């Protein structure tokens, strides 16, 4: 199996004018890119803004992407450069986020978003999600749990997982899929319940 084939399929679709394929690429990498940017900026809202900017830059430059490297490698490079530029630009800016005056609408909005990300109900929801995922993982049959951990935490390929678990590749594929479905069911319950409770608190 050639690496990056699924990303390349989506990239080719975007290059032929299909914007929906780029939505899929952003959905796949939004968490990873934002987490990457968080190494450069500590503020989650700012990290999301930078991640967003990085994706838009990637979209505009996608015509030049020829597939010489993996798409995510190319995307990460853009995200890192965007984050570095944002940090440099912020450092050069005479206005400091932390010591910002209250009469700036933009900084006020930014502070509001920072607060929103760190609201008590938001923190509770984050903890609940983490607990739910852990509980869902624990509830998985051992073969499913091993397969998803080797895939998501260790980043092994299906073939490598099949070799380590001594089973066919098709079985690995099925186990990972069933593990995802089980976790997804639990997460959806939490998201629906959690968001409902957050609205009540708000």
């Amino acid at each position, binding site marked *: 199996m050639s690496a990056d084939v699924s990303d390349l399929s989506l990239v080719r679709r975007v290059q032929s004018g299909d914007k929906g394929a780029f939505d899929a690429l952003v959905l796949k990498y939004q968490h990873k890119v*934002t987490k990457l940017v968080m190494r450069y900026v500590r503020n989650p809202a700012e990290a999301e803004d930078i991640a967003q900017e990085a994706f*838009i830059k990637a979209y505009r430059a996608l015509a030049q992407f020829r597939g010489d490297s993996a798409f995510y490698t190319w995307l990460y490079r853009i995200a890192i450069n965007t984050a570095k530029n944002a940090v440099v630009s912020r450092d050069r800016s005479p206005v400091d986020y932390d010591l910002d005056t209250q009469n700036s609408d933009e900084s006020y909005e930014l502070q509001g978003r920072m607060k929103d990300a760190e609201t008590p109900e938001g923190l509770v929801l984050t903890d609940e999600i983490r607990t739910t995922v852990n509980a869902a993982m624990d509830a998985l049959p051992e073969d499913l749990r091993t397969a998803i951990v080797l895939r998501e935490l260790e980043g092994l390929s299906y073939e490598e997982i099949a070799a380590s678990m001594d089973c066919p590749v098709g079985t690995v594929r099925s186990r990972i899929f069933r593990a995802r479905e089980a976790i997804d069911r639990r997460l959806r319950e939490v998201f629906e319940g959690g968001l409902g409770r957050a609205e009540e608190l708000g």
Partner: protein
Amino acid sequence: MNEELDSQLSAMFDDELPQAECELLALRLSRDRALQARWGRYAAIGAAVRGGDIRLGGMVAHEVSSALASEPLPADARERLQARGLTLARWWRPMAGAAVAASVAALSILWLQQNSLPASAALVARSTAPSTAPVEAPASYVVPRAVEARAMRMPATELANYVVAHSQFSTPVSRDSLLSALMASESAAVGAPEQAAGAAGDPDHHADDSP
């Protein structure tokens, strides 16, 4: 949703789907919002399993999609679409030329037909006009139609019988010349079949010929 499709989607998410299936699923994924939502949840599950906050960056896709809604296509896509348009233009150019030429030809034919129609109509009207109408005499000799000529012409056999029957009242020289003229005119007017019939001899004629 189809479990096999979801299984394919999970494998595609991990870059473990064969390329041909990947391309088909990429097409579907780019258009199917429900499939995209599931695809996004697989990404969130991965983040959660790795111990991250799955809400971090969870709204980036929505923001990017909104921001790109008014964005033009990537340059490569634009070039491809333009090239496709150019190819179409190249293909259409000779077709359009041929179509214009055909249209001009058709219009010319129509124009000629319309302009020549009164003249031909007048000719038809003139030829079908009643004989009582005051028509000027034709400038040239008009050959009567064959059907009319045949109807007006006395059958040669009858004429020959008439001549033979009345030969006793004519001189031998005039009788011979008249018979020769009749024979010549009959062979020219009636044609070979009748000549052949005459040469073979008709029993009725022979009976008539006998005095």
